[in-house]
């Protein structure tokens, strides 16, 4: 399984209009406030929506889908008013819910065709398009099978096909990899990436799995208890960790006491740097250098200890750390 990351970049900053622009959006369920004065602006591209249970993700999705009117505030999606053009908006948005949303007894192709018809497509066009989308999602061989007989992975792809059939501009995906095995998850993430990058679809990926967002999305909305804690490009939200490095080394071939050289280098690092954490890999450590540090000092220390430096990479905050920092549960590294 590949560990590569392939986030879809957001469109240019000076795009004419934002994909989603929300202004002071609040929503109450009785006395409970599910969304608290949410204002955000995201550009088209792949956007991750992260938050714990009760963070307000589902409420936000319902409002974005035009199924619910917010108690106060407003905004636009795809340039359309969130409050006044709700039905039209749903025609331009494809929704893939987390829960099973199939009609037992129906064949895959009929179900996707029906989804197209419910989105305003004439029957013939909806059916033709259903065949195309099912082929695209590699479900063509099982298209005439009853959808209750599909495997979990097939059902997820079928839900995606039903969301894609009317060629929406924006896809809302609620936990698209839920219940999938690692192989199925990998395939789904590649598919989502292809949809976003090759066909110019914007997508909002709501999930608990930060890895999925890290793999596919270029932007992120981080929510906690009804508020948006962070919104924007992941690269811009990441804290710039000055003075943190991942350092790798190997022993000199000519030296006879090879085991000691690595330990000696590590000991020197510990003397010089305030934070030195060996990683699970041999001959690798995460370090934090003191103020006024000159990187040439690494090479001097390596020469003295009899090792060769193979890599010095400035450490960046990853998405899990970014998330934990923003919601206030920062992990101690």
């Amino acid at each position, binding site marked *: 399984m590949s560990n590569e990351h392939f986030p879809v970049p957001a469109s240019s900053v000076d795009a004419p209009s934002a994909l989603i622009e929300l202004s002071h959006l609040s929503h109450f369920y009785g006395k409970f406030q599910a969304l608290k004065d949410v204002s955000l602006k995201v550009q088209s591209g792949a956007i991750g929506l992260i938050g714990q249970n009760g963070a307000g993700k589902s409420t936000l999705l319902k409002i974005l889908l035009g199924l619910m009117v917010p108690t106060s505030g407003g905004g636009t999606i795809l340039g359309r008013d969130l409050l006044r053009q709700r039905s039209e908006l749903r025609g331009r948005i494809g929704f893939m819910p987390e829960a099973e949303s199939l009609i037992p007894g129906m064949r895959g192709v009929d179900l996707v065709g029906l989804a197209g018809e419910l*989105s*305003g*497509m004439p029957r013939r066009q909806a059916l033709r398009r259903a065949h195309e989308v099912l082929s695209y999602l590699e479900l063509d061989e099982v298209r005439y099978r009853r959808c209750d007989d599909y495997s979990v992975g097939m059902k997820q792809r079928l839900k995606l096909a039903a969301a894609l059939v009317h060629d929406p501009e924006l896809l809302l995906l609620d936990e698209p990899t839920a219940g999938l095995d690692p192989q199925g998850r990998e395939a789904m993430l590649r*598919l989502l990436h292809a949809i976003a990058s*090759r066909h110019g679809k914007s997508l909002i990926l709501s999930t608990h799995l930060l890895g999925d967002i890290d793999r596919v999305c270029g932007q992120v909305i981080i929510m906690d208890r009804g508020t948006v804690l962070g919104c924007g490009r992941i690269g811009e939200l990441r804290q710039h960790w000055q003075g943190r490095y991942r350092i790798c080394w190997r022993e000199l071939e000519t030296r006879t006491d090879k085991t000691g050289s690595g330990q000696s280098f590590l000991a020197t690092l510990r003397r010089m740097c305030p934070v030195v954490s060996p990683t699970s890999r041999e001959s690798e450590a995460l370090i934090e250098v003191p103020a006024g540090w000159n990187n040439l000092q690494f090479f001097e220390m390596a020469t003295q200890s009899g090792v060769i430096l193979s890599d010095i990479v400035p450490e960046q905050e990853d998405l899990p750390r970014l998330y934990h920092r923003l919601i206030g549960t920062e992990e101690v590294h």
Partner: protein
Amino acid sequence: MMNSAEQSTGLQLDQAGYRAWEGQPRSNWWSCLSIVRVGLMLIFRRWVFWILIGLGLLNFLFHFAFIYLKATLAVQNENIARFLDRYKVTGTGDAYAEFMFAQATICALLLAFAGSTLIGGDYRQGGMIFYLSRRIGRWHYIVGKLLTVAAVVTIVTTIPALILYIEYGTLSNSFQYFLDHPRILTGILGYGVILAVVQSLLIFAIAAWVPRTVPLVMTWLGLFVLLKGLADAMRAIDGNRYWLLLGLWDDMHRLGRYCFGSLDEKKIPSAEYCLAVLSAVCVISLVLIVQRVRAVEVVS
């Protein structure tokens, strides 16, 4: 840089040829017809339902054959025709009302089971999410489902009655039968509308709140059988005929007979009372349906 696996996936996707759709979307009300088509397909594809549909078909074929037999025998011997007139297959309003009553009973049994598939399943298995997350609103969904049930009722009750009416008139000596009995046509259509409206609203309301099959069947049948029993019992105890209004099934039948012009107007409860009770039931059902079909349930 993409690795080979990604390139391969990308290649497959490109070969499959995702194409944009550039058509103009239709009005959302067209979607109601799609809902009806799918609903009927779900019922007629299941062999279990064909047991009840077959029963209705058998009743219809019996009447169809009987009318044909009578017409054939009448040519040879009028006495036999008069003898057969004793049976209620004679082309009178009463005969059609009784035929539709029998068909409606079979249809009610069919709906008791089909309600779970048509409506209950949407609550139990996520169909509601499927429908309401599309462009259509909840009223399109409600109208679509009501039309589906109404179509089932019409297929089982009204259409067979209309066919029998046409058959009887066609096999008569002249087409005078149609001119002499216009009330029968009104009766068939009127009774058909009453059955379709009341049954569709009632089954939708019950299935929306009691989506599982067994409780749904018990509630649905209980509504007709128990209420009728209660109505008869109360009338026997109290002596007041207005208690009979509690029997919804009989109310529909009385109103149907009124449409055929064969209800004894002097008897109480009269058609007006039945209409009032059934209207109240329909309004309550509609309120229950609207309460239950809520778009906010789509994203749980």
